[in-house]
Each structure stands twice: as C-alpha cells, then as structure tokens.
C-alpha cells in the first residue's frame, strides 16, 4: 500500500474506533442508569448490570485495538512514529489512557469508571478528528531524532496515567460529597470505598512521577542536541516543570504532611489541570519552540 492509502486506512480505523467507543459509552450509560434507577425502589439486579458492563469492557478492548491499528497505519504512511503533531499526540494519548485503564482493571475494581473513561476517550478522539486533524506528512528536520520516540512517548504515557489518576480523584470527590450528604445509595454502594480510591490515585501518581521525570530528562537531552541548551524556560518546558512541581508537592504532602482524601484529591486535580493546560494552551496558542501542533 502506498502512503496515501495507508493514511486513509488509518483515518477509517480511527473513525471505527470512535464509533465503538460511542457504543461502549452507551452501554456504560445504560448500566449506570439502570443501577441508579433500580436503586430507588427494588433491589439492584446486579447480574444484569454486570453483564452489560462486561460487554462494554470487551468492546472497549476492541476500540483500543482499532485505535492501535489506526496509529500503526498512520505511522507507516509517514514512515515514522505517529508522534509529530497534535492530532497524533491526541490519538496516541487516548490509546495510552484507555490502555492504562484496561491494565488497571485487571487488578482493581474499576469497571464502574468505564462511563468516564469512554467519555474521555470519545472527547479526545472527537476533538482530534474534528479540530486537530492534519495530513500525514514527513518530519521537519528538528524532529528527526530517536528522542522523538523516547521523549514524546514517555510524555504521552504519563498523560494517559495522569488522566486516569485524575478521573479517579474526581470520582473520589463526587463520592465523598455523596457520602457526606445522603450517604451512598444502593447504586453507589457497589463502588469501592473512598479509602481505596484515595490509595489508587496515590499509586498511579507514584507510578507516573518517575515516567514524567524521565520524559523531562529525555526532553532536556534532546533539547541540548537540537537547540544547544538543555533547559530554556520555553513555555512547554515551564509548564512541564510546573506539573512536575505540582505532583512532587502531591507526593510530598501525602508522605510527609499526611494529606489524604479530599485535600490530596484536589491537589491531584490541580496538578492534572496544569498538564492539560500545557497540552492545549501551549501547543495551540503558545509561542515557544514546542509548537508542533501543525495548526
């Protein structure tokens, strides 16, 4: 296949993945609605909701694989890794995020989070396709380096895990509010305890912090080779640093100051929003050397 038809194939695979994610979202919506509704009067028919949720997870694996195939085709069409502009960052990021969720699902009871996960994947892919799409093209000279793979991939994996940790921290805050108010209804009682959500958020951040640190170091090594300085307070670098500081503060606050629960969850969300800001604002409206969005 030539590069043009590979690029078309990639687009079709990403569209298909989007469609499957939409179905996953609907299934999770039905599952949740069903659980909430049946909670009001009758006992929750757990077997039925479980069955729907399991089907949704199965389809989510399919959607994730379609996305992976789309990424591979995109990479082949340009003979490089699909990490060169914001469209590619976004679809790779969505893939990492969903993969992180699916891996976490093997060990932790997170199926109930599927609604949020599929929604986030839908939104990311949707914006990527409608707003961020650029034609598949070869790299500009500054990006021709093995560090592109190392640095950008580490950043995107971090992004996926950050987003997952933030989804859980967000769920923590909502559940905490429910518990403080009316208490958990029957539908929410199937969700894990606040304490285990808090722990899981911490573990994900502890996991991602070294990856993020690595991504910054790899970026610095590359910056030294390409631009002659390893650190220049370029807006993207500055915000990467702010995110690093914010998550370092989160870890610090937990370990030494004993912050837990609500305060820690808020700190996690603030830190996560600095990552998002970096991704959206600096890539599109920023003026530094990292403006590779292609827009």
């Amino acid at each position, binding site marked *: 296949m030539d590069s043009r038809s590979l690029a078309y194939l990639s687009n079709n695979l990403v569209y298909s993945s989007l469609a499957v994610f939409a179905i996953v979202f609907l299934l999770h919506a039905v599952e949740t609605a069903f659980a909430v509704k049946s909670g009001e009067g009758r006992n929750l028919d757990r077997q039925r909701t479980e069955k729907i949720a399991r089907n949704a997870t199965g389809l989510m694996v399919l959607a994730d694989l379609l996305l992976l195939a789309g990424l591979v085709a995109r990479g082949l069409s340009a003979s490089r890794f699909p990490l060169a502009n914001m469209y590619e960052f976004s679809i790779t990021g969505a893939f990492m995020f969903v993969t992180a969720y699916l891996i976490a699902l093997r060990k932790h009871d997170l199926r109930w989070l599927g609604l949020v996960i599929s929604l986030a994947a839908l939104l990311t892919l949707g914006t990527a396709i409608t707003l961020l799409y650029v034609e598949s093209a070869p790299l500009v000279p500054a990006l021709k380096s093995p560090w592109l793979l190392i640095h950008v991939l580490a950043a995107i994996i971090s992004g996926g895990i950050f987003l997952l940790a933030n989804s859980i921290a967000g769920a923590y805050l909502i559940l905490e509010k429910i518990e403080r108010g009316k208490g958990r209804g029957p539908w929410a009682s199937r969700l894990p305890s606040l304490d285990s959500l808090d722990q899981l958020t911490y573990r994900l951040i502890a996991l991602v912090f*070294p990856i993020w640190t690595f991504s910054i170091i790899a970026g610095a090594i590359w910056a030294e080779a390409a631009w002659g300085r390893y650190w220049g307070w370029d807006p993207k670098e500055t915000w990467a640093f702010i995110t690093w500081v914010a998550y*370092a503060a989160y870890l610090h606050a937990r370990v030494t100051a004993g912050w837990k629960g609500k305060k820690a969850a808020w700190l996690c969300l603030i830190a996560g929003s600095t990552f998002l800001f970096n991704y959206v604002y600096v890539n599109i409206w920023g003026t530094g050397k990292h403006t590779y969005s292609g827009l």
Partner: protein
Amino acid sequence: MSDVNMSGRRRIEKDRTRDLGEVRELSGFSFLRYLWRLLTSMRTALILLLLLGLASIPGSIIPQRAQNPFQVQDFFEANPTISPIFDRLYLFDVFGAPWFSAIYVLLFISLIGCVIPRLNEYRKAIFERPTEPPALLENFTGYQRFQGDLEEAASHFKSKRFRVERFDDGYTFEKGYLKESGNLLFHFSLILILVGIAASSLFGMRGEAIVNVGERFINTPVTYDNLTPGRFYSVDSLQPYRIELQEFYAEYDPVTNAAREYELKVRVREDLGLPFTNEVVRVNQPLTFGASRVFLQATGYSVIVTVRDADGAISFQGPVPLLPIDPNLTSTGAIKVPDMEPSVGFVASFLPTAARDEIRGGFSSYPEPLDPRLLLGVWQGDLGMDEGKPQSIYRLETDGMERIGLVSLRPGESYDFTVGSITFESFVPWINLQVIHDPGKSYALAGGLLSLLGALGMLFVHRRRIWIRSTSEGIEIAGLCNTNEELVEREIKEAMKGVAKDG
C-alpha cells in the same frame, strides 16, 4: 532586612508567649536558629515548592526577553501603560528575577536543611540493629497466630534478604532501607542539577556566526557576530578549532514548502598541527569539541555582487549575507559601498523562486533557488557611516540619500546606474553556526538521571518490619509498614503458606 527581622521577632515572641507564658528577648543566635528551623520545616519546603511552580507561570504567558526579545518589544508597543510596571516587576525576565531566584535559593537551602539531618539519622539507622518486637503484636498489620515451628516460619524471611535480629522469644525482620537511600539520593541530585545549571551560566559561553558555504570558521572572538560569555568565562580560552564549510544540502517538501532535511558537510581541525577530518552536521547532530558544541541553527542566502565605478574599476566585490524574512527564504539586506564618490548603497531583496502579486510585490514562493532574482534599490548620498553611530549591516539608512534606480537582476546580469554598475554574479547559501560552551551540562544530566534512580527507590521500595514471636498460645506474626500495608500483609501470607497448620 530590618523589616524581616522585626516581623520575624514578633512571631517568635508570640510563639514563645504561647509556649512559655512570658515574653523573652531573643539573642541574635537563637533568632537565626529559629529562622533556620522555620525554613527547613517540611511545611515551608512544601509551600516554597508550590510557590516556585506559581512563580514560573507569568514567565510562560508574558513574553520573555531571553526567549523572544521582539515579542517583548511588540508587547511594549501594544500595552504602553502597563509594560513599564511589568518591567519593574521583572515580568519580562521572570527566570532571572530576584524574586524568582529568592524562591529557589530558599527552597534549596530548605532542601539542604531537610536532607542533612536525615542523612545523619539514616547513617545511624543503618548501623543500628533492629529492635525487639513490641509487646502487643495484635495491633499491627497482618496479625496471625498459628501453631508451628518458629524457625520454619523465620526461614522464609531469612531467605528473602531481610535484615534479621534474633531475640529470646522471636525475631525481628527489617527490609526496605533503599527507600530512604532513594529519598536522599533524589534530593541530593536536585542539588546537583542546580549546581550544573549554575556552572552552565557562570562558566559557559554562547556565540553565533554567519558563515558562507565555501568559507571557514576559525574559533576566535573576531569571527563571531555576537558572543555572550558567562561571568567567569574568558574569551582567551576559546579552543582553536577550525571548521571549513564545504557543501550544504537542503531539501524541502514540494507541497508544504516545509524543510525536510538540512545537511552540512564540513572539514574540521581541532587544533593546529592536527589532521583534518570530514564531518556532517545536521539539526539534531552538532559538532562536538569537549564541552563545546557547534549547531546548525539557520540558513539563508548570500548574494555575490561586483560594483564598479564609472571608470570600470572595482569598488566592491564579494558575498553579502541577506536575512530571510519568511519560510520561503525571501531575504533582505543592504550592500554598502562607501568607497565610491559619492557613496552608493543598495537595498537588496533576494528571491530564490521569484513570484509577484499586487499586495506583496516581489516575493519568493519556494525556498530552493528555482528562479533566483535579486531586486535592488540603488541609493546615492551619505551612508551615515562616518558619524561613528553603530549601524546594522542589514539595513541601509536612507535619510540623506536619494534613490537613483530600481532593478531586478538574474544571475550574471548587470545594471548601469549613473555613476557606476552592479553585476549579480551568483549566490551561495550561508549557515548560522551557533557555538555553545556548557561545562555544567554533564552535572545537570548526572543529577537528572540520579534523581530518577532516587525517585524509583523512594516510591517503589517500602521500609517494613515483620515480627515473629513464640508465646505459650502459639506463634504470633505481624508487621508494620507506613507506606504500603498490603505489601506486609502479602508477605506474611506468603510466609504462612506451608507453615501454618490449622491456626
């Protein structure tokens, strides 16, 4: 200074009043000790860390002189009232601002103050033997009581590289000292990174030079177009290398006009008397001379022209570098000929691939020279070069001059103006070489990698204790881990496999 002192004092007095019920005059020393304690508390470190993050935000939103001086100029023009205030608050130089330095210097003092006592404690902890099991094991993690053999249960932990201490009625096992090692390593490497950054800016140097392909670059101060040495860098210590620019290859995407590849072939000699070697320089592949590196930073075109006076004698000949003003390398500059009488100057535009429209006039539509054209405005009069005022070599000061001609030339063509002629001989690409001497980068890199290693130990190793004791009612086992209780529970369960017989 006295302000800080006063407010600081008042706070201590308040604290003391609360603690001791009396106000006591503090000696200078105890005040310093108080400040030290305040600064090195975890809370302060945490606040400083968050403050550092907050303080760098304006630097990413307001244009910065160090990154983009022209944008700062634009900002000044667009916001004439607020800009001087911003400027006084160092908001255009955030990362060099005194308040920014204050935060990170305080943070690092705080860091050192946190880490050194911990280092001491850690040293003690390593040499201390594990202590006896606590009286009531039931209150600890993973508590179990079972009937079995004490030694058999203990052997599991002995084989798992736990630190073992035998007591009269049982054992204490300890593991996970690497957590604190990682923690200390992490914080010390942050200090190492800072040392590297300081060394880079104090002992480093950066410079730039525009060199035509076919010419050579010799590393002496005069060959640089600009040279910024660090505070402790002496320009006498420039290494005497020599780079001959032999061939330059640029490839562009025919659809998007974006650059695809730049490749510069050079002949390099590190020092007098050493042999020349052939090298290739690319955007991601600089030349390296010890801690100095030479980067391919930008490219453009120089036009080679010959200017003759009315008698046909050559008044000027040579390549003149022009500066690109768009991605298609439409390049502009000036050719100044002070030796003619009266002086002559040219406003020059070089178009590698000439195109024309009504709004822009002549411009280039592709960066490669497919249809090269030199547009010249010929001016006669006072070049203004005798007044000793610094002038840009790329700009003709046309006040006091008169335009006497306007022409577009292909390579090889000439133009006669009233007092002489100009011939557009040919053109040659130039390369902007960026030379950077950075002796601190290896420290920063070592610091970065060690911090990563430290973070791994700090986050993934867990310090824990497990106790086994034989009592009259059987054998008791329990553990303690502040950072990961599940781990201790799992380890106890594992040890119990095969040991516990219907407990």
